[in-house]
């Protein structure tokens, strides 16, 4: 019996839950500006989340998936990207989308049930939210293949949850990315729950990072509540991919502090005590502790930031709420590049009906 292959999975973090450094900061994080940028992005995300929940509760938004407690994953991965890279998100990376330039108004539109929310004014090549779990992984491989074929020095970054790792789509996409050495970085937002199904019931794999072993490339774990660790690991993977070294998988371990969505009641299946325990891992508090101690972050700074973020989001919500809905013809407007003759009659019926009964 001879050993023909061996693999190890590592875990890394820079900031512990008390906001103390566990190792020297990576290059990008030296000096306060990057960390303050990351902190602001996380804070903005949390404010956005809170507003979205409020809108939902008052009937002005549809079912909404909060990212409470997971801000470091979304923000860290997006901050590691260049503008010309392409984000292929799941439905819980609001923080990444905001950082990429998708506006809060657009996000509200989408979650409010309006297609215009996916017609981003910036980040025009980024993918919209993917609801069918894991179905976006093949798209990321396709985007990365486009980059490779054109010789672009660009990278696709694909995010999905722990549950998504059980989907064949994700596996097939990773396997293809591996064998073609595509410039794509897969990031698992492991919030330890897939609605009511815990991570332990999703797979027997000791880590989710090791899913990459099956696809023939490197996988690693990071503390997903440490935005520095996420930013660093994803950033390094992106630059390796950009340099032609192929794909990577990063498992960011975090926790879903909120219900799965506003349609869910997590108390049916998990203890409040578990949730409370995880509050101490809050990625925002952690970075604030560090900034307070090491970068002179004050209460004033905090208040100022929160009120600035609040204003951005309030304005966005107002813009959202003030927008007239699309006309009924919107059903046909973008079905094909130009409407086939055969559908004109149906469109006429719609317009007539909506005039009469709408």
């Amino acid at each position: 019996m001879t050993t023909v292959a061996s693999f190890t999975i590592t875990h890394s973090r820079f900031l512990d839950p008390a906001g103390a450094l566990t190792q020297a900061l990576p290059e990008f994080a030296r000096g306060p500006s990057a960390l303050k940028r990351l902190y602001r992005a996380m804070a903005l995300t949390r404010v956005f989340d809170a507003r979205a929940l409020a809108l939902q509760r008052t009937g002005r938004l549809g079912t909404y998936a909060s990212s409470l407690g997971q801000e470091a994953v979304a923000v860290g991965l997006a901050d590691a990207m260049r503008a010309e890279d392409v984000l292929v998100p799941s439905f819980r990376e609001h923080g990444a989308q905001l950082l990429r330039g998708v506006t809060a108004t657009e996000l509200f539109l989408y979650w409010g049930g309006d297609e215009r929310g996916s017609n981003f004014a910036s980040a025009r090549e980024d993918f919209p939210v993917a609801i069918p779990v894991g179905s976006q992984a093949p798209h990321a491989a396709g985007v990365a293949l486009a980059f490779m074929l054109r010789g672009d020095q660009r990278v696709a970054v694909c995010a999905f949850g722990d549950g998504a790792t059980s989907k064949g789509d994700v596996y097939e996409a990773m396997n293809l990315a591996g064998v073609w050495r595509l410039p794509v970085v897969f990031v698992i937002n492991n919030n330890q729950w897939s609605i009511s199904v815990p991570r332990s019931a999703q797979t027997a794999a000791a880590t989710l990072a090791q899913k990459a072993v099956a696809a023939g490339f490197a996988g690693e774990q990071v503390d997903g509540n440490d935005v520095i660790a996420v930013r660093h690991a994803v950033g390094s993977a992106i630059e390796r991919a950009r340099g032609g070294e192929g794909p990577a998988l990063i498992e960011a371990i975090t926790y879903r502090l909120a219900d799965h969505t506003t349609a869910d009641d997590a108390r049916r299946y998990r203890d409040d005590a578990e949730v409370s325990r995880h509050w101490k891992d809050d990625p925002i508090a952690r970075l604030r502790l560090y900034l307070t101690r090491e970068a002179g972050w004050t209460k004033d700074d905090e208040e100022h930031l929160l009120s600035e973020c609040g204003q951005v989001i309030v304005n966005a919500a107002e813009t959202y709420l003030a927008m007239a809905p699309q006309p009924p013809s919107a059903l046909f407007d973008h079905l094909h590049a130009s409407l086939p003759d055969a559908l004109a009659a149906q469109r006429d019926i719609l317009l007539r009906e909506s005039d009469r009964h709408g």
Partner: protein
Amino acid sequence: MVERTLVEALNLALVRAMTEDERVILYGQDVGIDGGVFRVSEGLLRQFGAKRVLDTPLSETVLAGLAVGLGAQGFRPIVEIQFDGFLYPTLDQLINHAARLRTRTRGRLSCPMVLRAPYGGGIHAPEHHSESNEALFAHIPGLRVVIPSSPRQAYGLLLAAIRDPDPVVFLEPKRLYRALREEVADDGASLPLDRCFAVREGRDVTLVAWGAMMRETLEAAEQLSSAGVEAEVIDVATLKPLDADTILRSVEKTGRCIIVHEAPLTGGFGAEIAARLAEHALTSLLAPVVRVAGYDTVMPLAKLEHFYMPSAARIVDAASRVMAYA
């Protein structure tokens, strides 16, 4: 007798089936402790234990394929797919295996599975949560397709589907889950899997529908009645195999037919019914058949959803046109 919602009726049928037949098991995402995202399987894990009610990983393909192995081994698996828009990864296993296992082994192995999923629009759900895709399933040889429209039907048809020795796709109109209550006797009586339900008698025009569209259809029938037009209403319910006779008999009487469905018009199951009329009711037809259906568009997100959904008004209009036809 107790009045129950459609969700409660399904739950009742599941309890009944699992009590009477040990081979019946239920699995899917969140069907256990969470009781299913719509609570159809509420309490089942507690009652039947983790060997009969299984929460699964997030893998629709293997959920369908698993049933082929379980079925071949004599189990009667009930598979819950969480929403209509996530049914597509099951098609390969359904078409290539579940629906033809009996055929390809000349009866040696078979697959008595029931694949359940909440289905259809109208509840302002997120993207991919409001799809009406029954026509895809109804084209698959060897598969039955059932769509109940009331708590009583849900109870009797689900029991029948579970007891049937072959695969059944059972689509649950989620808009009706809690929209109405009716008395449901827990008597274990199943309903036939190949008979349409004539739910209203009338001499002037036949309205054919199924699932949640029964509401708009019956509402339209009421309105028509006020206007002196007596509509006969047929609830197809068991789409495949199609009980065309019941529909044909009605149209022989009324001479007019409106078919209503939420799915996109082209290639929808309404086409099959209209085709049967064109084939077998030509001499009875006093007016063109009309389909009141969804448009051939992507199901819009919540804000425009109501423009997509066929309305009672559209049905009434169609019926009025058909009545005026000469």
